[in-house]
């Protein structure tokens, strides 16, 4: 028989306690945010430059430009910079056509391919407006996004404003599970923003250009330059605002392989940037970010890997033991025994799992009402019982790459 290790109860209980603690912390913070919403008066009139880094995006570029042109905002205040990162398809030609077709568009062609961060920097350095928005070519902002985001800049401490994302593709199971994830992430990010602890400036974010000038541009070669920029803003004690009641639509990986590769990069980037900003951890001048968000983020990534590896071993050991028992003549049978049934469901570990599932489900239903989104319960169930394990695989791979000092391929 293979050795089946029993996890000390205190370890299991600590993990559950941490989970309840995190959930309660978020719920309490959400309630606090509901009672202390800052009302910013005024309708700011900023000039704004959209920087679109483009590498082999010929089919997506026009949709992105059109969505900017359809924004409910004075078009004479909007400039669009398309920066071609030496694409190998017709991206540059498409961009040139769009430049002729629409007003306010400038196209830049970089002499060689140097990656997204450098491409963004190329565009931002050429912008002259106070506000700069960066967005991927596959991202489509909703019409009211500027009206809702720009007032946030009336607060001088706000260096960037991010918004909620929605996958534009959601027919396959892997896409639908990401839909649920993006929806839940939107909720958590809005709370983090309220805490002044949102550490990420994702694929569509609006920046105060002054921040780049004073504190530097996107970190070239960083796998998650958006996370790094978010941490940099926080390290300078700036804030990142968040808009939850509008969104930008974006493409998400449509195959498991693409998904794992994306999450591997994200996971690696998270660890890399956590190490880069390690001095922020538990430093009181960074508030809840230092005491709650970052430690939870880092510990969560590491814990998930340990739990996954342990679970895989347990599964393997149980299968081997099952086979050994079968070969010794044991036959599985099932007889219902009420006593055993009651005892099983009143085991503290099982009760804690039930509590966790109920908390998760309640939050899901609550956020669904809050965001007025009709997400199917079956997608949420898929997300809980399948997606999180797939995510854990990518996370574990990221930890492996990080510990081995190997950078994942883009």
């Amino acid at each position, binding site marked *: 028989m293979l050795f089946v290790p029993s996890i000390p*109860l205190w370890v299991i209980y600590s993990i559950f306690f941490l989970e309840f*603690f995190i959930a309660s*912390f978020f719920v*309490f913070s959400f309630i606090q945010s509901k009672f202390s919403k800052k009302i910013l008066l005024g309708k700011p009139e900023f000039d704004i430059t959209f920087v679109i880094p483009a590498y082999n995006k010929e089919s997506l570029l026009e949709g992105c430009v059109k969505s900017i042109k359809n924004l409910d905002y004075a078009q004479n205040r909007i400039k669009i910079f398309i920066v071609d990162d030496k694409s190998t398809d017709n991206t540059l030609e498409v961009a040139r056509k769009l430049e002729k077709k629409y007003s306010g568009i400038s196209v830049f062609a970089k002499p060689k391919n140097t990656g997204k961060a450098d491409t963004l920097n190329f565009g931002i350095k050429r912008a002259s407006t106070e506000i700069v928005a960066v967005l991927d070519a596959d991202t489509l902002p909703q019409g009211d996004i500027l009206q809702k985001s720009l007032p946030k800049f009336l607060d001088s401490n706000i260096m960037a404003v991010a918004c909620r994302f929605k996958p534009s593709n959601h027919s396959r199971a892997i896409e639908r599970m990401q839909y649920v994830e993006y929806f839940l992430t939107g909720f958590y990010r809005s709370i983090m923003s309220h805490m002044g602890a949102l550490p990420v400036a994702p694929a569509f974010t609006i920046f105060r250009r002054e921040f780049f000038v004073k504190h530097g541009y996107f970190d070239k070669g960083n796998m998650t330059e958006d996370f790094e920029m978010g941490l940099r803003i926080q390290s300078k004690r700036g804030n990142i605002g968040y808009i939850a009641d509008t969104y930008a639509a974006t493409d998400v990986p449509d195959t498991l392989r693409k998904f794992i590769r994306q999450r591997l990069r994200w996971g690696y980037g998270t660890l890399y940037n956590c190490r880069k900003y390690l001095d922020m951890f538990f430093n009181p001048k960074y*508030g809840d970010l230092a005491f709650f968000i970052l430690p939870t983020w880092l510990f969560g990534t590491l814990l998930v890997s340990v739990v996954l590896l342990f679970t895989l071993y347990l599964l393997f050991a149980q299968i081997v033991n099952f086979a050994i028992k079968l070969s010794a003549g044991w036959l599985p*049978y099932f007889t219902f025994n009420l006593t055993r049934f009651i*005892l099983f469901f009143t*085991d503290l570990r099982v*009760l804690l799992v039930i509590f966790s599932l109920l908390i998760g489900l309640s939050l899901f239903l609550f956020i669904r009402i809050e965001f007025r989104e009709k997400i199917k319960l079956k997608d949420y169930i898929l997300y809980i019982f399948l997606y999180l394990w797939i995510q854990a695989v990518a996370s574990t791979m990221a930890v492996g790459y990080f510990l081995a000092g190997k950078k994942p391929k883009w």
Partner: protein
Amino acid sequence: MEKAKKVRLEAYVVALLVASGFFIAGIAIRDFAAYDQLNTISAYQKTISALLAVSELKGELLQSDSDDYCNLSWDDVWKEKVEIGNILGALETKLGKQNPQVLEQKAMYNKVQLSTLNLVKKINENCGYNWTVIVFFYTNNKTSELGDSERGSLQGSVLDTIYQADKENIKIFSFDAELMDEETRKSFFDEYELTTTPSLIINDIGYDRFMSKNEILEVIYP
């Protein structure tokens, strides 16, 4: 941008209290159920002991009258013995094999089993039954000197399969060797030349090793 950020102490305190609340609720439900089940076991143990005492008394008084002796309602004794075994198995999983209350109940269970074993043997001898009586010794302690706990667990599964196939005619008594009193275990081990666990006594013959299903079936149904 040089404003220090806030650590909202109240959020940590509330989160701590709520998380503790979940644990307290869970522990309360668990303990209520476990207490209830331990009470059930206790009640069973008392009933079964009383039934056995009466049976033994009747057995002694009515040795000459085998009909009366054989009509004793030992079925109840057997069913309750099996039920105690079931509950104890579940409680072992739930509270842990080394839980003091579980160990206490198991020690009592061993005594009940010994009495039941004697009764079954008597009934078998005197009332024309042909039950197969299997006594099984195991240990749950991974570091025990009394044998291999993993093999013991495997032997338990094999015996379970054999019992499920012929419940009417097979009577199995399982003893955690570590929980038996030293004297009783030694007397069994000496009489049947056993030295380790898992080991078996099948129809009064000792087998000082793990036995596969086929080996056992060959002994039971030669």
